[in-house]
Every structure is written in C-alpha cells, then in structure tokens.
C-alpha cells in the first residue's frame, strides 16, 4: 500500500474550533495521562448537541408516544416521527415508513433473519454471508438455518482482507435467498463493494441485507443508490445515544414479512380470535420504544450533517493514511487487513507480543484501543492469530493522538518483546 502523508489535516474543525471541543468526555485524564480514545468502532463519544438533546428530552418532552391525546404525548410523538424523517433523509430512503427503530444493528439483523425464518425459507435454500462478518451478522443466520434447515455459505477473502468476488459469483445459485454482508469490516476496516454485491445478488433473485454499523459514521449512505433491500446500523457508533438503532427495509419487503415481536403499538385491532397488525413502520415496533434514543438520534445526525459526511470521510481517510504510514515503521508489526479501500479500523499484530499485553500497557498510558477478536473469531482463525490490537478512528481524533499511540505502541513492544 503506497501512502502519502503530506497534506493530511491535523484535526477537523467545527464553527472554527477543533471539533473535539464539542466532546466533553474526551477532555479527561486517565491514570494521570490525557485520554487518547481510539476505540471508536466499539462506540463513539457524544457531542454536546446530543447530550443537550437528551437533557432537553427529559426536562421538556418525556412522555409515551402514539397513544396519549395529551400535549406532552403529542410533543413526544412529533419529535419521534420527526427523527424518523431525518433518518430517512440521511440515508435517502424513499419514505419514513421504511425506517424501523431498533435497539441497534444486532436487533435489526435478528429482526430480518427471524422474520424470514417464518417467510418462505426452506431446507432447499441457502444464505450467503462473508468471511469477515461480525458475530451479529453470523449467528442470526445460523439460527435461521437451524429453524429452517437452510444452508449457510461464506464468501472467502484474500490475505489482504478483500472479498473474492469471483468466488461470490460462484456461490450465487438459485438456492440463495438472502445475501447478508457488512459494508465495512469492524476488524479489518475493509470497505466492501456492496453495490456490486447487491447487483449480483439481485440478478440472482436474492434479497440483500447490509450491516452498515461501521459505515454510517464514515461514509455517505444512499440506500436507493445501493438498492439494498435492508440496511442496519446503530446510533451509538455515530455519536448518538446507545440502545437505539435503525433498520431500513424496502417497503415491499416490510409489507410482505410477518411481524417480529407482538405487543402494543404494532397492532390495529386485537380480539382473542384475531389481531390485525398496524401499518408500517409500527408493525415492527412492538412495545414502548427507546423514545429518548430515537428522538436524540436526530441531534447526532444533525451534528454529522453540520460538519458534512464527505468532509468527515476525507478527514478520516487522512487519519487512516497517517496512522498506516506511522505503524509501518515499527519492526515486527503487521497490519491485519490491507484492503485498498479501508475506513475506520486499523488492526495490528506484533510478532512475539500478545495483543492483550499491548492493550493493557497502552491503557496505562491513557490510550484506549480494543484488543482481542472483535467479535470476529473466524477472521482470527484465518490469519492464525489470537487477536489484534485495533485502533479505530472518529472525526475528533487528531494526528498528534496517532503520534501518541505510535509512541506508546513502540514502548509497549519494547517492554514485551
């Protein structure tokens, strides 16, 4: 990989100041050292805009939605639906009926897998995933296979961590009902050619789900252009609150699929003989949802839009290039995942040093990284390593933080090897 580090922006600005000033949690000392937070693929810190919106929700809006005729309930319902509209606009969905609030990416994928397990999948069918999926995009499909007898097929990857598209084409036969792949790998950082993957699947008559948990905070997403049937992501990885996520689904599919959970809000009429389900999107939102999370997700989206997702993508690309060039200087260090198109995560392994040891020592230097298998054990088996050290970037990281990380890494390796 050839990397040019000239002209890389040191930090991103917001209203003329460093954007990190918007994130109070970044401004703290851990073990007497300034915090360097590089675990953003796990979760991101929150800007004042989101924190203030949460406070505003509980101080002025808090009420249950969709049922009350009173003022506050109406206010909460309006804010909830305004937020849904803003999500639809953010990913360019055709309309807000295609936007389902979930607990997160995991629930979104489970919803689709569970509904399909009750909708026309049999033991003659198969499901395709890729070899670098997060466990959240493996296990729900294994559960579907257990229930229906369908087979799970896996698109292999090369040593650089790129999917083998020819092998994928070979897997696509008339048994394949669903293709479920990640947009961006949480471990390797690989950006998958999801548009091409979708096109090929559709030519084969297969449904496509994209796990966008590691993409939505780094890349502009346009579901109409991707033409995927489903796309799932989480609020907490895009500067929003935890416990809220989005499942986008094409209206035609959401209409066809049976409901996920039963309960309040997802019904029109209930008798002991028969229940008539509610219309979209409420059919898939049983029970009182995470109202605060759903409403304040809009603040996170507004924050991203104010900065501009393309500006964020360009800046983070710079960070990735800067970090990649810097760690390559370290003897004995391997980058795990050398795809040409990468974003977010930089995974490393060091000869003779266990990732756990490196993580413990970096932690004591105030540097937060993730070590281990990152919920992608099949990737570790592929590369024959116990785990990686993963630095993952967000819009508030700086090149000087990467310098601190690299210095810390060198110090840890010196102690361990």
């Amino acid at each position, binding site marked *: 990989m050839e990397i040019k580090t000239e002209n890389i922006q040191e930090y991103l600005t917001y209203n003329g100041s460093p954007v990190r000033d918007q994130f109070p949690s970044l401004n703290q000392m851990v*073990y007497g050292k300034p915090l360097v937070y590089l675990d953003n693929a796990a979760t991101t810190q929150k800007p004042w805009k989101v924190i203030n919106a949460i406070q505003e929700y509980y101080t002025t809006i808090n009420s249950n939605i969709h049922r009350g005729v009173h003022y506050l309930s109406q206010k909460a319902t309006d804010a909830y639906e305004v937020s849904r509209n803003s999500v639809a606009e953010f990913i360019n969905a055709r309309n807000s009926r295609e936007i389902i609030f979930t607990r997160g990416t995991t629930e979104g994928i489970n919803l689709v897998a569970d509904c399909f397990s009750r909708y026309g999948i049999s033991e003659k069918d198969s499901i395709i995933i890729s070899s670098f999926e997060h466990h959240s995009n493996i296990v729900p499909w294994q559960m579907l296979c257990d229930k229906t007898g369908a087979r799970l097929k896996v698109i292999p990857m090369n040593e650089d961590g790129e999917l083998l598209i020819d092998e994928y084409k070979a897997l696509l036969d008339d048994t394949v009902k669903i293709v479920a792949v990640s947009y961006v790998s949480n471990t390797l950082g690989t950006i998958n050619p999801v548009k091409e993957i979708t096109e090929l699947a559709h030519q084969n008559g297969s449904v496509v789900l994209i796990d966008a948990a590691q993409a939505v905070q780094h890349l502009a997403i346009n579901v109409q252009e991707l033409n995927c049937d489903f796309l799932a992501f989480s609020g907490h990885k895009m500067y929003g609150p935890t416990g809220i996520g989005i499942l986008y689904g094409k209206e035609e599919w959401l209409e066809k699929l049976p409901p996920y959970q039963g309960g309040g809000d997802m019904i029109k009429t209930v008798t002991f003989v028969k229940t008539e389900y509610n219309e979209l999107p409420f059919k898939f939102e049983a029970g009182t949802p995470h109202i605060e999370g759903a409403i304040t997700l809009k603040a996170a989206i507004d924050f991203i839009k104010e900065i501009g997702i393309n500006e964020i993508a360009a800046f983070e690309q710079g960070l990735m290039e800067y970090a990649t060039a810097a760690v390559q200087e370290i003897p004995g260090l391997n980058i795990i995942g050398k795809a040409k198109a990468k974003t977010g995560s930089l995974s490393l392994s060091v000869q003779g040093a266990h990732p*756990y*040891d490196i993580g413990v*020592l970096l932690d004591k230097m105030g540097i937060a990284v993730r070590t281990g298998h990152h919920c992608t054990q099949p990737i570790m088996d592929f590369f024959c390593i116990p785990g990686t050290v993963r630095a993952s970037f967000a819009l508030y990281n700086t090149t000087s933080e990467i310098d601190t990380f690299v210095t810390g890494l060198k110090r840890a390796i010196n102690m361990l090897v």
Partner: protein
Amino acid sequence: MTINEKQDELIEEFEFLSDWMDKYEHIIEEAKELPEMDPAFKQDKYIIKGCQSKVWLYPEFKEGKLYFQADSDAIISKGLVGLIVRVLSGFTPQEIKDADLYFIDKIGLKEHLSPTRSNGLLAMVKQIKLYAIALSSANKVQQ
C-alpha cells in the same frame, strides 16, 4: 513462610513501584522468572479460558500439599498467574482454601480480578480454590 507472609513480601516488592509502567515491568519480569511449565501438561483440559488470553494451570498434590505449574500465551497474564502461584503453591489444601488474597488489591491490580476482565485471572483463582476445596474435603473423608 505462610501465605500471608508471602503476600506481604509481594506488597513490599511493589511498594516502590509507583508508576504503572514500572509495575507492569515487574510483572513481566515475574513472568520471565516463572519456572517453565512441563509441556506435557499444556493440554486443553488444563486451560482456563479468558476471553483474550489462555492460561494453563496444572495442580499437583504431593505429601499433603498442593503445587501449581502455570503458563499463559500472554506475558502479563503469565506474570499475574506467576504472582498467584508464588503465593499459593506449596501449601495445604486447607490453607489455600482459607487464604484471603489481599495482595492483589494492595498492589493495585484489583481490576484484573473483576469478572469483566478478559485475562482469566479470576477464573484461575476460582479454579485453585476449587482444587483446594475438593482435596481438603477428600482429606477429611480419609481421616
């Protein structure tokens, strides 16, 4: 030396290491000094699995006392395991069963014993205690 005297000795060793990096430097030294485990015992049945690092622990009961051999694929885990083996190896099951491992907290490594830590240390201490409990109750039956 009793278990507590061994613990106090360790606390004294760590007392002068105020900086975290010095502490971990010392733990890494401890790992290097841990007698090598007989490769014959590095079997899956002796693995105590943490989420991230593997620890092997082999117990041996000789002349009324429990001895431990241990290893880990991560050097800090190995050092921590080494500290525990240093404190507990060579005592009777009853003594081990009753031991209160206060040194871990005192030397500032308590976080490694929290259930969310992924090094398997907590599981290892539990396993040592289980061996001791099993052996001490077996002893009572024999007596």
